[in-house]
């Protein structure tokens, strides 16, 4: 635990990528495989499920530190993170445990979920009393299921590769899918050679960066292919040895959520892996993403929901053909094989070959992009015809070129402090549009301002608070912001009747008075256009 906490601290106290990789690589070089396995799991976002209710943790922390509940609340508001608040409030511990991470995780962290309350309390108090400052913080993060650290999967892979001398691509592939943190699994992960993982495993996804240059800078349009970009669930469909597996990009196994695709996959030959987007699809166009969410949220996939929200896989790449890894073949070649494969399935309503946007000039590509919203797409993907299927987020071969988001000018009506990095400042704002003489809240946004603007806004909020409701303050409705969002749909759960997707602040309109902010009617007009598919 000490070494893992030290690793966390080293990663947490630098912004330099190299130092993070060095710290992880040092850790993995010396760690016991059982500990290293847990470290890999936690660093890639693994979290134990159903631990201790945070309410209990808070109660025990108050007892242990002699802090009353209102003072605990005040402290929590100032810190913005429960695990940290508890770590800061507890009295300094007198001892310092040398037990390894594996022991902490197996004997305490994983044992705690099913234990009696009495036993849970004993484990937690023992941990608090036997761990030093930073270890206690890390333990609290683990036990609240909120452990996060600033390293991407690709940095973790790089560090493992550096520590083991196994190529990054191999590590990445071995880690993909449902990797279980055991000493044995770790030893396989870093074992010499390039041996692949078991049959259910997906390949690492290839991810695109947002287009950063002019289209013309990409070279000749003939070397590129444009496809519509969809807002669904990015997934790999795997057919091997008569079995089908569907993996999301977040490494969730979704096979059982999409029986239609499993059925259709019967048509595919063994040794096939397709990359694509799962979308709720009807009459040649996608349904709103919320429909897919609604379906995913159901415990029972009833025939009713299946017919209300039919799904398809828009297939755009082929990673494995006849059991061979074809990721290094050029994209045009993979696409050709994918096309033949889909035509041979008799399941063309489930497997839709991602349409190519025909264009002989960049100008035509630009024109096509304008049509994306009408088709229910969120922009274009640009792919080099000769590009291999890469590992992780890479520049060069693929670019995503998203539509400019919708935007409206809205009035700030509530503010509350942020979490973590921004815990001391009011950074979370609620925005409203005008409706006659009233203001109707419709969106919350956290991001989009610079640090300097956040401070200025924070000072303004403190001076212009109308009422306080716990940490939330209502403020004078004077500040206007241009908000951008990616999607809009009707929502009976929202007061405004409208829900927007991924709202963010585009800019602070200091030039605009609240009386000139947009109205509910203008939002409704956007909604009508989105639902009507442009008609």
């Amino acid at each position, binding site marked *: 635990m000490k070494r893992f906490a030290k690793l966390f601290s080293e990663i947490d*106290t630098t912004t330099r990528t190299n130092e993070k990789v060095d710290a992880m690589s040092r850790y993995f070089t010396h760690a016991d495989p059982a500990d290293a396995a847990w470290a890999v799991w936690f660093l890639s976002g693994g979290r134990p499920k159903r631990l201790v209710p945070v309410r209990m943790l808070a109660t025990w922390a108050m007892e242990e530190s002699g802090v009353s509940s209102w003072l605990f609340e*005040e402290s929590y508001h100032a*810190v*913005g993170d429960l695990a940290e608040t508890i770590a800061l*409030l507890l009295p300094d511990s007198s001892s310092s445990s040398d037990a390894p991470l594996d022991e902490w995780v197996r004997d305490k962290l994983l044992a705690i979920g099913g234990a009696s309350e009495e036993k849970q309390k004993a484990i937690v108090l023992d941990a608090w009393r036997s761990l030093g400052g930073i270890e206690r913080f890390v333990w609290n993060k683990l036990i609240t299921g909120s452990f996060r650290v600033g390293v991407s999967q690709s940095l973790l892979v790089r560090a493992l590769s550096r520590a083991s001398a196994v190529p990054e691509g191999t590590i990445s592939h071995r880690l993909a899918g449902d990797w279980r943190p055991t000493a044995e699994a770790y030893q396989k992960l870093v074992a010499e050679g390039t041996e692949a993982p078991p049959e259910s495993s997906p390949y690492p996804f290839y991810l695109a960066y947002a287009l950063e240059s002019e289209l013309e800078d990409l070279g000749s349009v003939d070397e590129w292919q444009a496809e519509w970009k969809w807002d669904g669930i990015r997934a790999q469909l795997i057919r091997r040895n008569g079995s089908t597996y569907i993996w999301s990009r977040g490494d969730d196994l979704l096979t059982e959520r999409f029986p239609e695709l499993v059925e259709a996959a019967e048509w595919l030959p063994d040794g096939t892996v397709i990359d694509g987007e799962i979308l709720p699809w009807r009459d040649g166009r996608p349904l709103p993403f919320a429909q897919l969410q609604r379906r995913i949220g159901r415990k029972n996939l009833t025939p009713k929901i299946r017919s209300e929200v039919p799904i398809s896989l828009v297939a755009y790449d082929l990673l494995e053909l006849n059991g061979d890894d074809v990721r290094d073949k050029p994209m045009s070649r993979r696409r050709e094989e994918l096309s033949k494969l889909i035509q041979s399935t008799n399941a063309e309503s489930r497997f839709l070959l991602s349409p190519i946007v025909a264009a002989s000039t960049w100008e035509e590509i630009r024109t096509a992009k304008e049509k994306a919203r009408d088709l229910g797409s969120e922009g274009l993907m640009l792919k080099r015809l000769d590009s291999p299927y890469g590992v992780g987020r890479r520049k060069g071969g693929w670019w995503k070129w998203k539509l400019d988001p919708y935007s409206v000018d809205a009035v700030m009506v509530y503010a509350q402090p942020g979490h973590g990095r921004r815990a001391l400042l009011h950074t979370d704002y609620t925005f409203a549009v005008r409706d006659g003489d009233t203001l109707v809240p419709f969106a919350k946004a956290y991001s989009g301002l610079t640090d300097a603007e956040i401070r*200025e806004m924070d*000072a303004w909020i*403190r001076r212009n608070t109308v009422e306080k409701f716990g940490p939330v303050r209502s403020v004078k409705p004077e500040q206007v912001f241009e908000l951008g969002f990616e999607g809009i749909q009707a929502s009976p759960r929202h007061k405004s009747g409208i829900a927007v997707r991924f709202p963010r602040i585009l800019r602070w309109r200091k030039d605009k008075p609240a009386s000139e902010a947009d109205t509910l009617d203008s939002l409704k007009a956007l909604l009508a256009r989105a639902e009507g598919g442009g008609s």
Partner: protein
Amino acid sequence: MTDLLRTTDRGLYCEVGDFYIDPWMPVERAIITHAHGDHARWGSSTYVCSTECERVLRTRIYNANITTRSWNETFHINGVTLSFHPAGHILGSAQIRVVHRGERWVVSGDYKTEPDPTCTPFEPVRCDVFITESTFGLPIYRWTPQSETFADIAAWWRSNREAGRASIIFAYALGKAQRILAGLANIAEGRFYTHGAVERLNNDYREGGVPLPPTTYAGSVSKNHDWTGALIIAPPSAGGSTWLRRFGTSSTAFASGWMRVRGARRRRSVDRGFVLSDHVDWPALMETIDATGAERVLVTHGYRDPVVRALREKGLDADSLASRWEGEGESELQEDIVPDDEVAPE
């Protein structure tokens, strides 16, 4: 009966004595606890401060008409008895005792009880009414022993030197910067460089008899100086500025009580946060209030509400005392007078 001291729109005012303590607007007679910009403001006709405070106050307020008093020396203004008592916050920082008709008030100003070689240590003063600051008035604020913090800073500096980097530490130019210099003098090796704002005050400290290790004004060395292994002390306002470019590859740190909370450090975008404060932490705040014997406590400047509530639970007569520095925009403060540790939350 009206209070001996009360808040007006110009600051904390004593009507009987017709004087202000740390006024935020120009007044006739200003009694100053210490020279930080949120306590010592420009424009008053006359200032009274501790003898130890005079030099830095002159640096901070150009051409001020200043009278000084020694520690514990009593003096009278319109029949009110006053005296300065060390507050241990920075050089010359004082608590101000105000006595009238047997009622004893003490205004703490900012204070800390930890030892600090750069100023006279804090002395508790018995009183009936204590006006206390509450900058770090939450139990999450509990300082680590400063010897550990200085050892951490020294270790960070050493590892930067070994990695071929300069070390830049941001600290408030008046007080914190000098405390860091004194704290590192005997435990770390290497040369100290300073931002101009820090260097001016270093000179004041040295002239005031505070021993500090040798420092070099960073602006005085040649453009192509090799900064590897140097420790540069700069005010927080230099963070993110072009002034930093000259130092090449560097690691940055911020020394402040706020660094106790991870989010505050991350928001600063510095590599390291060192917990080092010139204010009392929660336990010291509670102990100090006990030690004054005051039955009535007025809480100002910081986390007022929680401190008031905690004191009331202990059976004290406690109230919140508004100060200018809450609910006001930072933008109204010039950079040079941003209060220590920046602006207090809440």
